[in-house]
């Protein structure tokens, strides 16, 4: 992929590796996080009969840039009773977790950090680091609100991994691959090939699968929502209860890291949903590049479609946030263990039965 290309170009695996590693960060995560925060504030503003940021740049487009530059300047407070080592590691770990996930996300058929065979498995595994980071942050802050937030967060993320994985499993079972690249490639060219609509095989099974795929899609969307701590599942940082949850004690750049990680995560989970169910980077209507016979246009189109779909789901997450109240911690657990997991499990069984038909 991109690594091979760079390796050929520069002749040095080291440079190629470094660039491949940093590319998503600077080309995508940072700009995306800045954009997403602004989008969030704009979406919130317009939903609430307000305007959102207006004064910083044209219609506030520089608002988040100013926020980040300001956060860099802020004093980095480490209180006397904080566990200094963990306190410093936690934001890095959280950010690293969500950053590492981007390695396996297929932005297009060429812009792909690493085409790992176990892509989806890898993403789910490394996002587990986020939990560790959050727990560390909560513990090291030596603040009761942070601790409660961290505990809630750990419980929540672990509970909601299960329905996510069950749904992922059903797709994996159907396709026989864990590579997100292969998954995206298989749902090629048109939207009726998406797994949301039963997958590319045009047989009777496809139509049988459609309702169960829709259920699976809903489950994975809900549970990923919970994994990134968004409303209605934002209890770990529930503003009105726990002040800011696990990052109550963080200031300046460390807080910014949590902030960036949160928004990067929002995109990462949306990307998983997109890659599994909505054709990944494939265009729903065929490619302009094919039509005009311009080969280099196709990856750009793919990149556009992938980010478009991803940002659409990020937008839906924001939309939900500014519409819904939040659940209570026990209701949240009940929603996962009593409803999502059994449904996901039966869904898995039925999809399995259909696929052997």
């Amino acid at each position: 992929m991109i690594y091979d290309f760079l390796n050929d170009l520069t002749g040095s695996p080291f440079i190629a590796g470094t660039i491949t590693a940093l590319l998503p960060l600077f080309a995508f995560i940072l700009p995306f996080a800045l954009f997403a925060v602004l989008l969030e504030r704009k979406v919130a503003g317009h939903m609430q009969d307000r305007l959102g940021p207006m004064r910083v740049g044209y219609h506030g487009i520089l608002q988040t840039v100013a926020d980040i530059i300001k956060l860099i300047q802020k004093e980095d407070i480490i209180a006397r009773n904080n566990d200094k080592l963990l306190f410093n590691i936690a934001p890095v770990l959280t950010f690293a977790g969500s950053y590492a996930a981007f390695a396996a996300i297929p932005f297009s058929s060429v812009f792909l950090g690493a085409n790992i065979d176990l892509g989806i498995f890898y993403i789910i595994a490394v996002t587990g680091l986020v939990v560790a980071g959050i727990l560390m942050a909560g513990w090291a802050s030596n603040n009761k609100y942070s601790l409660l937030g961290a505990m809630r967060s750990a419980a929540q993320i672990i509970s909601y991994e299960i329905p996510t994985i069950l749904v992922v499993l059903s797709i994996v079972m159907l396709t026989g691959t864990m590579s997100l690249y292969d998954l995206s490639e298989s749902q090629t060219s048109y939207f009726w090939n998406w797994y949301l609509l039963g997958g590319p095989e045009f047989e009777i099974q496809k139509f049988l699968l459609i309702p169960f795929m829709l259920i699976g899609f809903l489950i994975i969307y809900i549970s990923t929502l919970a994994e990134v701590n968004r409303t209605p599942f934002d209890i770990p940082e529930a503003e009105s209860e726990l002040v800011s949850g696990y990052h109550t004690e963080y200031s300046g750049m460390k807080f910014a890291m949590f902030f960036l990680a949160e928004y990067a995560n929002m995109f990462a989970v949306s990307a998983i949903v997109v890659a599994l169910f909505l054709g990944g980077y494939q265009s729903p209507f065929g490619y302009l590049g094919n039509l005009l016979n311009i080969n280099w246009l196709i990856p750009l189109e793919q990149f556009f479609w992938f980010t478009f779909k991803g940002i659409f789901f990020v937008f839906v997450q924001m939309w939900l946030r500014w519409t819904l109240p939040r659940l209570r911690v026990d209701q949240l657990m009940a929603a996962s263990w009593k409803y999502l997991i059994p449904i996901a499990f039966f869904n898995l069984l039925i999809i399995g039965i259909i696929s052997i038909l």
Partner: protein
Amino acid sequence: MGLLDKEFSDGNILITTTEDLFNWARLSSLWQVGFGLACCAIEMMATSASHYDFDRFGVIPRPSPRQSDVIIVSGTVTLKMALRVKRLYEQMPDPKYVISMGSCSNCGGPYWEHGYHVLKGVDRVIPVDVYVPGCPPRPEALLEGLLKLQEKIRYESITKKKNEVV
């Protein structure tokens, strides 16, 4: 004055431009502590709400003082509360700013004479950057106070002392 000091105090192009950038960032993104005391807090909420919309200026309430830049002391500071306000101020990371909103926190307001439990002015416990008069100040007045604070930040300098700034 050493060579380096001179170099910095003269304000060469590099320093002034970064300074401008930093000041611009600071003034454009003043996150307030989500903290209300009394009547003025309601007007502060009204300022954040749809009609006046503080968010236009980049001001959003943060629940935790660790992540905020400006504290709007909105309302009467009582003796029981004063040390808490002070602690809250101390919890905020530098650079931090204080807007004193309303007569009560400016000078004790209507409680200045017989208020046995009222602190006559929040500036007796924490330093104040901008005073907004009124009882309670209208949201427009608070916005004006914010613009004044932004003006103040715009001319801050890392090389000059704070009190030299006009």
